[in-house]
């Protein structure tokens, strides 16, 4: 198949005549809503950063062991990677046309974001729940 402008639709899609896959609106809304949730979380992170930079290891552990901070940090990591995955996917779709390159980057994006969120949540739980043992 050549990469001409009329080839963005596959022959199957033309034969079915159903238009787009209709996943776009859900993606769009998920992106905006997670973006809204990240506004207060980002402001909280920007406010907490300098405070943590001033303190040492023990201060940081005490800070993250507080339930509110642990929950907000967990929400920031999970919602943040969810949002990044959706938004970077759009950038990949816009600029990478080749099927193999696009698919590879989309899967890499998914795996990095899921792994990042999982590692982040695990680290937060370890500090928050086991800091009494440190």
């Amino acid at each position, binding site marked *: 198949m050549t990469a001409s402008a009329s080839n963005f639709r596959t022959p199957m899609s033309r034969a079915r005549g159903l238009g787009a896959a209709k996943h776009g609106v859900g993606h769009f809304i998920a992106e*905006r809503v997670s973006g809204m949730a*990240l506004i207060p979380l980002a*402001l909280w992170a920007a406010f907490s*950063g*300098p405070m943590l930079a001033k303190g040492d*290891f023990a201060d940081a552990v005490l800070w993250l062991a507080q339930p509110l901070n642990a929950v907000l940090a967990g929400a920031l*990591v999970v919602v943040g990677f969810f949002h990044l995955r959706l938004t970077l996917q759009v950038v990949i779709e816009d600029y990478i046309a080749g099927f193999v390159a696009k698919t590879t980057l989309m899967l890499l994006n998914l795996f990095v974001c899921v792994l990042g969120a999982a590692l*982040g949540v695990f*680290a937060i739980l370890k500090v928050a729940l086991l800091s009494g043992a440190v």
Partner: protein
Amino acid sequence: MTEATPGVRERPLSPHLQVWRWHVTMAGSIAHRGSLMALYVGALILVGWLLALANGPEAYAAYKGLLGSPLGKLVLFGLTFALFFNLSSAVRHMIWDVGKGFRPKFADTLTIASFVFAAVATLAVWLIAASTGAL
């Protein structure tokens, strides 16, 4: 695969960067994407910080030393700007998403405002950090 499908003509491609006069909403759009990609790296740096904290005092001190180095501070300064610019751009797009604010003059002003907000908020955070002795 044949191109002989009746009724399907070559679709026009949207014009790309080089055919446009440079304008502020375009700069805002490019910076929004740029800030997004910077924040992707920033999120990984944040996870690195959490893992260092979970690992123990030695790992934490080493990681904090890395972030506190001149290069680390430069990266964190850039990430602070990226964070605030992404935030103000998200608000700008919310206004556009509900169908308001498309008059060119207002759209330009709104985009300039999102740059100004990001610059002021970034300086505010770093001045607060400097005044509390965090740097």
